[in-house]
Structures are given as structure tokens and as C-alpha cells.
């Protein structure tokens, strides 16, 4: 148990460093899509909610878990959709669209 938590701390620390290094390079041009994409990825919390609702260990856990699935799934679907819509709009002046 203790070891798990220590490992988790290592994982968190390394991921935070990767996050800083990768996201520092994102052009200010794309800061809005960046936020909606990280938001969609963050909704991976849905896996915890699925297990909670699916295990059905208590009435409370099942109900709260189901609401949590709804909230996270709407972020996944909405987040990816809008990020892609935004990115499709970014065109360079190279090939001109008529």
C-alpha cells in the first residue's frame, strides 16, 4: 500500500515534468484548443466512474458513479468535437481556398 503511493508520486512528478516540457512548446495560437483538448483527456476520469457504477458496491456509489460517467463522457465527446472543429479552421495562407 505504502509502496503504491510512493510509486504514484514518482509517476505524478514525471508526468508533470513531461507536461511542462511538452505544453511549453504549444504555440499561443493554439491555446484555446489546448485547453479543450487537455480537458477532454482529463475526462479519462470516466474509467474510475465506470468501475464505481459497474461494481455497484452500494446504492450511493452506483448513483454517484452514473452521474460521474455522464459528466465525464460529455466532456470527452464535447471536448474532442470542439477541439477538432477549431483545429480544422486553422489554415495557413499557402494554398488559398476559393
Amino acid at each position: 500500500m505504502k509502496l503504491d503511493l510512493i510509486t504514484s508520486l514518482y509517476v505524478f512528478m514525471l508526468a508533470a515534468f513531461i507536461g511542462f516540457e511538452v505544453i511549453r512548446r504549444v504555440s499561443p495560437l493554439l491555446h484555446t484548443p489546448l485547453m479543450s483538448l487537455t480537458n477532454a483527456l482529463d475526462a479519462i476520469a470516466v474509467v474510475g466512474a465506470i468501475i464505481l457504477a459497474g461494481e455497484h458496491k452500494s446504492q450511493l456509489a452506483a448513483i454517484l458513479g452514473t452521474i460521474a460517467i455522464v459528466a465525464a463522457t460529455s466532456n470527452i465527446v464535447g471536448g474532442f468535437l470542439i477541439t477538432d472543429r477549431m483545429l480544422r479552421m486553422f489554415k495557413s495562407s499557402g494554398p488559398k481556398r476559393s
Partner: protein
Amino acid sequence: MPTDTLIEISYLVATVLFILSLKWLSSPTTARQGVWAGEIGMALAIAGTLLYKGIVDYKLVVIGLVLGVIIGVPLGKVAMTAVPQRTALSHAFGALCVTLVGTSEFYLRAPNIAPFMMAVLSMEVILGSLTFTGSLMAAGKLQEILPQRPITYKGQNFVNLGMLALAIAIAVILVLHPEQMRLFPAMIIIPLIFGVMLVVPIGGADMPTVISLLNSYAGLSAAAMGFVLNSKLLIIAGALDGSSGFILSVIMSKAMNRSFTNVLFGGFGQIQAAATGAQEQRTAKSATAEEAAAILAAANKVVIVPGYGMAVAQAQHKVRELFDALTKRGVDVTFGIHPVAGRMPGHMNVLLAEADIPYDKLLDMDAVNGDMAQTDVALVIGANDVTNPAARTDASSPIFGMPILDVDKARTVMVIKRSMAAGFAGIDNPLYYLDQTLMLFGDAKNFVGNIVRELSGGGDHH
């Protein structure tokens, strides 16, 4: 292969895809690939989770997923002008998910919770619940359901910090005595109220920083949830989101020359009242669309500086027509975009990209400022404080030290504005009284439309 291994492998691949997804987002040419990587990773992780043997009740899971899709699709199709409030709303949903899972985990495990576990669980629900209401408030303000003006009262900071301290104190008690289960609801309710109180005093112009900060909190609370569930995938996704929000908050704060604490606890409105005291009467020159069109047509290099006012007036498509008309005449037109222009990071870029303006014409502050002295016309549309030269010169100005777009260094400055009334923060802008400045009074959309008509031949054949 045992199912558990299969699930772990799906999570591992998802993690790699998530990191690649963000890496590819660094450039507009690979960014869409990044979205696909994220989508595949997400699908894999969900499919893997559904294989989990512990799931006995698929009915609720399916109901949840279907409802989520039904709500998510319209949220992915909102107008581009509504993206800031949509983003705030999605922070709220993410935080809601985390808080609900944390709450369930507490009641499933209490009172047998180890101290470290209880500490991360507390962090999860405190951050989650304050982000939930804080983001809802931000979304309400952005959607203009709630008043945009900062609401401040005496002792506000004391009340807010007191509430936060109380929530943390409860967390400490629960870490030491997890059997005190009746305290748990208070640890959710107090941060819920705190979240509301935190955003109440924050005005529209500070929204970019606040949204970024809430983004960071949402990520951190998800990472804390990863600790509770011992899910490396969730820890990594949360850490990525948290660091992204943090980086954006730092960029936004720097762009306003303010600290986080100043944004959250400063109350922009109060300082200015004193600062804008004595004021001699100065005159500003104004010009018509015809005159503006003539000056623009004669220019070699034009920089357009858009602000939130352009979004409010829905003028971006008319601006695109202006861009086309001038480009056709051989004028070099670029856009100078301040990091905090608009209501969220990158807001102006998205609106202009939607209007089909090529992204290589959208330049950031440093790129534009370097060329400002060689610029014939700087056209300011709906921006105010980010062009205020007082930020450079007047130490008594509340925005002194804030990096600005140096439009006053251009040969001619044109400012499209409804009237001489001061902007959001109520700060007087000396730019308007400079010799080379022409005020173009009117609605941004109509005025730009009139200039375009003049450029295309006085409106005769259009």
C-alpha cells in the same frame, strides 16, 4: 492473456497516445493528428475498462455513457464565440465527476482509511468541489447570466481565506480520525461555497487567468483521484492537465503583470477609482470611414489589433473582408494578438481562424512590437487596456508594467470604439489623445463594413 494484463496494456498505450496528442498539438500542421491520438487513446482506455471483471452492472454504465454522449454532442457544437463559457462548463463537469467519485470512495472505505489516502482523498474532493462551483460561476458570467462586473465587499478576502482554512482543518481532522464520518459533508459543502465566493469578485477581463487556474485545479483534482484509485493513467492525465492549466495561468498573469493572488484576491475595480482622479480635458480627433479607407489604402504595412469588443460586435467576418480588400491592394496586413485579448487564452486566434484568416498572419505581441515602428497603420478593434501606453509610462496607472502592444509607435493609429467612455477597468487611455491617433466612432462590425465598402469603390458596385 489474463484480462487484467490486457486492461493494463490498454492503459499504457492510452498514456503514450495522450502524451503524443499534446506533443502534436504544438504546431497547427500536426495538431489534428493530436486529436486523433487522444481519441484513440480514450477509446482504448474505455474499452479496456469495460473488460474489467468486477463490473457486474453494465446497465448503469451504458445509461451513463449514452446520456453523456447526448449532452456532449451539443456542447461540442457551440458557436466559436461561446467557447470560453463552454470551456468553463467543461471544467465544472470534470470537477463534478471527480468530486462524486471521491465522495463514493470515502463512504465505501470509511472508516478504514490510511492517513495518506485520506489526505489525497480530501484534496480530491476539496479541489473538485471548489472547481465545480467556481467554474459554474465563471460560465455564468461569461454567458452573461450573471453580472460581469466584479462584486466586492469589505472583508471579502478574510471570509474566503477563512472558509478555505476551515475546509483544510476538517480535512486534517479526517486524516487523523477517519471515523468522524459526519464531518465529511462539510468538507464538500464549504469548498462548494468557497468556489462561488472566489469567482464573485472577478471581472470579465480577468477571465483568461481564472479559467486557466480552474483548468489547473480540475487537472490536479483528477490526479488526486488517480492516487485514490491507484490509477497511473489518471495520475498522468491529471498531471498533464494540471501543468497545462498552470502554464497558461502563468502566461496570463505575466501578460497582465499581476500575480495569481492579485487576480484572485485583488479586485481590479477598487484600485482605479482612486487612480483616475485629476484629469485635464483633452481632445481626440475622429475620422469617417471614407478617410480611414483612404489612409489604409495608401499604407504598406497595417497591423490590426483585435480585442474582446470585436467578438462582442461579431465583427470578425467583416474584419476578414477588410483583410482581403487590403491584401488585394498589396498592403501587408497582420494581426497583433495580446495574450489576454478576449475571455480565454487564444480566444482571438480561434475567432479569426474561424473567419478564414490564415494563421500565419496571427502574430503574438513580441513579433508585432518589433515591427511597430515600421508600421503605417495600427487599427485597434475593440481592444483597450492592452494598447494603453500608460502601462509603459505612467507609474501611477493601475496597469503600469503590464506588457502592451505598442500601437502608439505606429505612424497612424486608428481606434474603432463606440464612444469615449472608459473600458472595462475604467482606466483612461492616453492613446486616444495622441497626435497620430484617429478615433473611428461606431459599432465595430458596421464601421469595418463601411471601410470595406469604401475600399471596393465607394459602394457603387457592391
